[in-house]
């Protein structure tokens, strides 16, 4: 018996959002009289952190602390139209809509503050801590709460904003495929180390080294959640999962998590992640969407690592011990490549 070590590499890019019907998102922002803001959306938080990232974007744009913003989603009676949470569009499309809505609300907030301070709204700035003051004269200040109260009870202003983000529809040329699929791309590279047993075909992942370029990381912990969890899902796709173990036959389709196999916590491999941030010019604060692309480089990196280890190309996912063993039999035993 021998265990063969191999390393595999893959690099990918990923379109952020899609171009389907213009891919619009809308957001509404309004303030309570005490200067606390509600953002109303119809985006879905599936775990990716939609509520949280929109909250930070709104707080940044409004110039108020994040605790003073609450994101309410998704109730079709209050949240305006949104295409949905898929295609890595959430942060990019909805984030932009939230920026626009928040900017509009901020403008009214500053007008209300300006009236109270008897200055031009253009001379005002926020400190991000709940205060509005005159640029260059921090002592001439009013709290966001006081401005909101004044707006509501004295001035009759609505501190609210509407935002929509829409990318123009793109034609697709039937003959050449010319199109504008999206406006920005995320990037990734991944190197996976595996050990392959040449008697059983079993593959053990021992290490993952990655670099992900995600535009600006709007919340580094949320980004890490996506990258770490998503890369592991990619690993699961690469070497464990399928609804059709004998594709294209439909026999033995799994009906539970004992037969639909996904790696357990005992299968985990260390994953060292490097995050690169090249802001997208039309992304919210430069953000892209890390949620989908994080899985993609893992699949090819694993098959490439298996090839590196034993010389067997698994061109049909998932990489099961059976496929590796059949490959080894066809090859007449392991032929390690060790190129990396």
């Amino acid at each position: 018996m021998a265990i063969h070590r191999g390393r595999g590499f893959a690099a990918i890019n990923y379109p952020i959002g899609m171009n389907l019907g213009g891919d619009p998102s809308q957001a509404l922002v309004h303030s309570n009289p005490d200067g606390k803001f509600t953002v109303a959306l119809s985006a879905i938080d599936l775990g990716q952190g939609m509520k949280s990232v929109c909250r930070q974007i709104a707080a940044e744009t409004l110039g108020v602390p994040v605790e003073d913003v609450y994101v309410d989603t998704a109730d079709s009676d209050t949240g305006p139209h949104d295409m949905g949470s898929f295609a890595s569009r959430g942060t990019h499309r909805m984030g932009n809509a939230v920026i626009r809505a928040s900017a509009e609300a901020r403008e009214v907030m500053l007008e209300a503050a300006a009236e109270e301070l008897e200055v031009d709204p253009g001379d005002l700035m926020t400190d991000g801590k709940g205060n509005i003051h005159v640029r260059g004269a921090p002592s001439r200040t009013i709290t966001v709460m006081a401005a909101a109260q004044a707006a509501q009870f004295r001035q009759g202003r609505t501190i609210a904003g509407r935002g929509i983000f829409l990318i123009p529809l793109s034609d697709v040329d039937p003959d050449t495929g010319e199109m504008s699929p999206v406006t920005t791309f995320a990037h990734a590279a991944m190197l996976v180390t595996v050990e392959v047993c040449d008697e059983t075909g079993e593959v053990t992942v021992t290490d993952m080294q990655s670099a992900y370029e995600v535009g600006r990381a709007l919340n580094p912990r949320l980004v890490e959640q996506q990258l770490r969890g998503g890369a592991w899902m990619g690993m699961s796709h690469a070497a464990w999962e399928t609804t059709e173990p004998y594709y294209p036959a439909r026999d033995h389709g799994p009906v539970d998590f004992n037969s639909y196999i996904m790696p357990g916590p005992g299968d985990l491999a260390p994953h060292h992640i490097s995050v690169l941030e090249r802001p997208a010019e039309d992304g919210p604060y430069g953000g892209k969407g890390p949620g989908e692309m994080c899985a993609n480089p893992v699949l090819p990196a694993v098959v490439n690592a298996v090839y590196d280890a034993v010389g067997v190309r698994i061109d049909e996912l998932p990489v099961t011990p059976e496929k590796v063993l059949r490959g080894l039999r066809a090859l007449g035993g392991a032929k390690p490549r060790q190129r990396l």
Partner: protein
Amino acid sequence: MTFKPISFTLNGSSKAAFATEGQNLLDFLRRAVGDLSPKYGCGQGTCGACTVMIDNVPQLACLVLAESVEGRAVNTAAGLANGPRLDPLQEAFMERFAAQCGYCTAGMLVAARALLDANPRPSREEVIEGISGNLCRCTGYEPIIDAILDVAEGRVQA
């Protein structure tokens, strides 16, 4: 349809409710009693989202006959916090970003609590073993393992 009265203790409080014939504890807790913290993930005993403690032993509520908890003590994630004071595990899960969609979280926390009650200083391998009955599709498990170890190794206080 016949109904059976069940008296038991839920998170320290006495409860009584009616179970239908053959009803599992998960459905009973959620629909008859109103504790929505255990979740349905499979009804097959393979995901752990419905994990509860029965007499301090972690079990899968979807595979427990509701009437079998008569007179016993059931604890769920809803009872982990002591009033407004969260369990250190809950604090650690928040700090470690150990939840994404949050659907497995309640069951995962109960499994983790059961582990630490039985073994307050588990090794990483023992933590992995302790949560091996609970699936998480979002996180890749690492932050969950780290959060439990944070509590076990005293890095998080309630």
